[in-house]
């Protein structure tokens, strides 16, 4: 099997994690260093082993990009809209509470993904209803009200 360039990223990430944890580990008391040290050495050793495997594979079979395989059929616009919408949804929950944010988030994503408005409305109603009855009524979970609505209430 050829070496994939994308795996260089994996190796670098793992070394970075090891370095980060090692740096912070040195600040700990000696008695608290034992186990983190063990796990860092383990991850470092395995990553190095994988690096050696990669080098051997590169020498034997050559190198390929790997990006085409990893991002096959990748729709960047759709992916990033969904990702950013999820992050904004989280921010919205903090300010406007769970229900308003959920309705907004679902409406935006459903319409963006070209779900007909009627189906979108039904989906939103079903999910909001499910959460209200299952989480709020049945399980007694108090969902966030949001700082803005809280301030307005006061």
């Amino acid at each position: 099997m050829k070496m994939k360039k994308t795996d260089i990223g994996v190796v670098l990430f793992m070394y970075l994690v090891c370095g980060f944890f090692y740096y912070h580990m040195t600040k700990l008391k000696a008695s608290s260093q034992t186990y983190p040290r063990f796990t860092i050495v383990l991850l470092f050793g395995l990553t190095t082993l994988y690096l050696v495997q990669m080098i051997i594979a590169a020498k034997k079979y050559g190198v390929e990009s790997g990006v085409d395989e990893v991002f096959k059929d990748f729709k960047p616009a759709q992916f990033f809209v969904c990702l950013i919408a999820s992050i904004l949804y989280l921010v919205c929950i903090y300010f406007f509470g769970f229900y308003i944010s959920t309705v907004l988030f679902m409406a935006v994503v459903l319409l963006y993904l070209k779900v007909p408005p009627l189906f979108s409305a039904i989906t939103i109603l079903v999910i909001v209803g499910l959460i209200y009855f299952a989480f709020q009524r049945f399980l007694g979970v108090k969902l966030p009200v949001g700082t803005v609505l809280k301030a307005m209430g006061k």
Partner: protein
Amino acid sequence: MLETLSLMGAGFLNALTPLNLLMMAAGVAMGIVIGCMPGLSAAMGVALMLPMTFTMKPETGLIVLGAIYCGAIFGGSISAILIHTPGTPASAATAIEGYQMTLRGHAGKALFTACYASFWGGLLSCISLYFFSPLLAKLTLKFMSAEYFWLSIFGLTIIAGVSAKSIVKGLMSGALGLLISTIGLDPITGVKRFMPSSYFAEGINTTCALIGLFSMSQVFILAEKEIKKRAQATRFSDKMSLSREERKTLRPTILRSWIIGNLIGILPGAGASIACFLGYNTSRQFSKHKEMFGKGSIEGVAGSEAANNAVTGGSLIPTLTLGIPGESVTAVLMGGLVIQGLTPGPELFGKYAPMTYTFFAGFVLVQFFMLGIGLIGCRGFAQISRLSDAILIPCVTVLCFVGSYAIHKNIMDIVVMLSFGVLGYLMRKLDLNTAAVVLALILGPIGEKGLRNALRTSRGSISVLFSSPVCWVLIALCLFGILSPLFMNKLEKKAEEEAEEVANPEELDNLTEEDSV
């Protein structure tokens, strides 16, 4: 013996409360819905529903998770039979014969066979659950700190090999999880370790990590691909039943698949996706009607479905007794157990025996619910299986958010879940193993305690880790764990190739949609 029998009886009485029965029905229905939708997995469903079980009694919570697990494994067969797309990998072999039966106008019969075989596979698997679990749990009474350390390493080596293309990458994922599990207060000295804020004092919230790694990452996987229209589910008008003669024919097939599925389930590192192909191939080898294979054989459907459902009970044995889940779903289930404050091992069969036996009884009853709900709701579930990814993406996202918030009612939990979602997505794209990270988060603290207590009693001498025969057995098992994926991959490949040979493409081409009802 008498005590065990009385515990079993009491377990059934406890499981038969109206709330438990209601939860079983809801769990099975939810599991079937999740299982029949291509793109959603059993592990994802169990992870998503985990927060809902927090406020329940431990036994009720576990019954719900078990019901989702069984329902999802069976649910995969509905879309496999009606739209030729297995809902879960566990039903891949069912699609071969099941869809052929649909094309020939026997969709009802195929669905009944899948339901009937799943029921028997799951029910029979409970026998070994009852029989082997207490025996295996007793073994762990001999375990000291060093043994617990090796046991956690063994668990990691086993799961690291599953589903990862490279064993080293799987182990790297496990090691990364172990490192993440060190975030928080030192369990012995109370020193702050790698904590950016006091929120992380208790470490990374395992449930949030679970939801992120299994469910949120799946949302990102769905979001990156073009939203496709799913195939129309075949409307069928034939009766959902089997003749007495046909049921008689299926008996030996189901028995063989039960044994196969159960063994595969008990064996850590193997899972329902391997079992279904092995069950299918074995049913063909022993069939008196080999000519029917590839053209729509009920034995083929039964062989695959009985085997994948027999895995469910079998896979719970190492999970509950040793704390070693063999696959992703049981890793999530174990997370549910640990979150409820329960530790797998002898305690479950001693101090918590009433709870454990209630769960076992619930697991038996779940099979009956699966049969009933499966048969009654097949047509409806078939339509749900066509639900577009465009609807699934926001719905699952909202459930991930509300699920992770419900645990501690803290928005930071959603941040952690979302971060693990992104991490899980990248890990899956780069062939790293998310299940290994989850298991490491669960086993990490157990291993750490074991290692540090062992070193403390030996005054820092590492030799304590190699001091007992049990340690050496566990070390040998760790080596087996590292090497077993090589064997398992070969076994799966061989079974798949054999199954593909049966599903002759020419035969498939000759049968058009016009042949279907």
